């Protein structure tokens, strides 16, 4: 266990030093957040009765999404890991007396957490200062916030597991770009990254919510804004637990299969 903590610590510390990347990401996320809110406001003004969320809840959803993007997007899967597989430096990783899956899982989780920490504090402060209905509102009550926190952790666990499956596939494909592009596109759309899931047609939303992608950003962001509550919330949190277990199991199975066949190319 201690070695995994050491991994987390070093990767976390390393993530904290990329200040310029964090600043750049922050600016980009503010811009994107503002644009998204303006666009949704236009929809809202056209026909408020057809709008499936309240406007303040919508704004909170967008700001939280932008602030936590680094933690919850499949996109921020560990590029380092892919590079290592592609360049063959992965040879060294295989010479270590640790489980490869565990080691990389922890590393990726740490890089997500440190990147998000750098970005989310300033983003949340500024978003909270923006007046309603465009700013980040406080959660309805403490209990909701606790459910949000739990679901956030689960979402990070699930999204890291998705990233690991992509990494394991990279062992097979030589170049990581294709799988990664496809995975990011699919996951972004089905986790409500482009349009929140409540905006999907009813039937599509019901199916989408069962997918592993919905068990990432979708659940915590909607709990926070009060859009998701009661039995439906409990069901989706349970589904998050299920996907966390299932995806980690699949990743480990892939690890076991791939490591038997891996060939580190080049002298």
């Amino acid at each position, binding site marked *: 266990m201690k070695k995994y903590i050491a991994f987390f610590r*070093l990767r976390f*510390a390393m993530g904290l*030093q990329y200040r310029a990347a964090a600043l750049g990401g922050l600016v980009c996320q503010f811009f994107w957040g503002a644009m998204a809110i303006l666009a949704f406001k236009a929809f809202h003004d056209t026909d408020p009765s057809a709008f499936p969320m309240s406007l303040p809840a919508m704004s909170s959803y967008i700001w939280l999404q932008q602030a936590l993007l680094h933690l919850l997007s499949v996109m921020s899967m560990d590029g380092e890991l892919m590079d290592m597989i592609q360049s063959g430096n992965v040879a060294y990783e*295989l*010479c270590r007396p640790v489980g490869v899956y565990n080691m990389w899982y922890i590393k990726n989780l740490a890089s997500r957490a440190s990147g998000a920490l750098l970005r989310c504090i300033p983003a949340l402060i500024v978003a909270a200062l923006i007046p309603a209905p465009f700013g980040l509102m406080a959660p309805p009550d403490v209990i909701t916030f606790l459910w949000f926190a739990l679901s956030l952790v689960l979402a990070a666990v699930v999204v890291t597991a998705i990233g690991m499956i992509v990494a394991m596939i990279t062992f097979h494909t030589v170049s990581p770009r294709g799988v990664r592009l496809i995975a990011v596109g699919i996951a972004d759309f089905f986790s409500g990254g482009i349009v929140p899931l409540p905006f999907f047609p009813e039937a599509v939303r019901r199916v989408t919510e069962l997918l592993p992608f919905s068990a990432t950003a979708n659940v915590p962001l909607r709990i926070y804004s009060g859009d998701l509550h009661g039995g439906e919330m409990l069901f989706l949190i349970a589904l998050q637990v299920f996907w966390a277990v299932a995806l980690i199991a699949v990743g480990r199975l892939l690890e076991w299969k791939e490591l*038997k066949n891996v060939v580190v190319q080049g002298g």
Partner: protein
Amino acid sequence: MIEVKDLKKTFKVARREAGFGEAVKALFHREYELIHALDGISFSIGDGEMVGYIGPNGAGKSSTIKILSGILTPDSGLCTVGGRTPWKERRAHVKEIGVVFGQRSQLWWDVPVIDSFELLKEIYTIPAGTYKKNLSELTEILDLSKIVKTPARQLSLGQRMRCEIAASLLHDPKVLFLDEPTIGLDAVSKLAVRDFIKRRNKDHGTTVILTTHDMQDIEALASRIILIGKGRILLDGTLDDIRRGGEHIDETVAELYKKFDV
């Protein structure tokens, strides 16, 4: 210490002629060629030996090292290092070995070298006392005190290689695999690395297997050499066996490659 018997490994390599037409053809039908990287090699190496593993490019040297260090599974054959089969008991096996791949890096690129060392301490669960002792010894002999606080990306190749070697020895491995450890190094760094490997072997009794194209490395380090070509062992003996007196070591080896037609 190390027993290798009839090890075989075949790779499938895609081939095609140059040109656009050929590339289109390869879309539908790809021709593969089987390369016998290792075609039944056997040798045994005793405790505390220092062996130079030489051969022309593509002879199968790196494949052998990869199998011995547990990251490549051979098609057939037996191999034990300290009684364990590397690819079957990977985690237990790698605790006992140190590996330096001259062409790759194990240091974390963006953080000071010492952070990578600290991480290795946790990964190998090295007791604090042992770690401290080894670190100060390695720091002194390899002259690392000034460079361990620098991020790995800002080190010169020679400085980095010294750190790579130190990183591979922090956990007191019984066997050390060096895959082209002096590649790209200047004369001073080369001498320092050679000197260090020699001392390590003498003082700690570490078994060393070294692949290199630099025959001075072999001359300085290895009492025994194993020559491999086209996936087979061609010669296993001492340096004096192949020397015919007088001439330069590079010429001797080139002559040898010619003789075996590899």
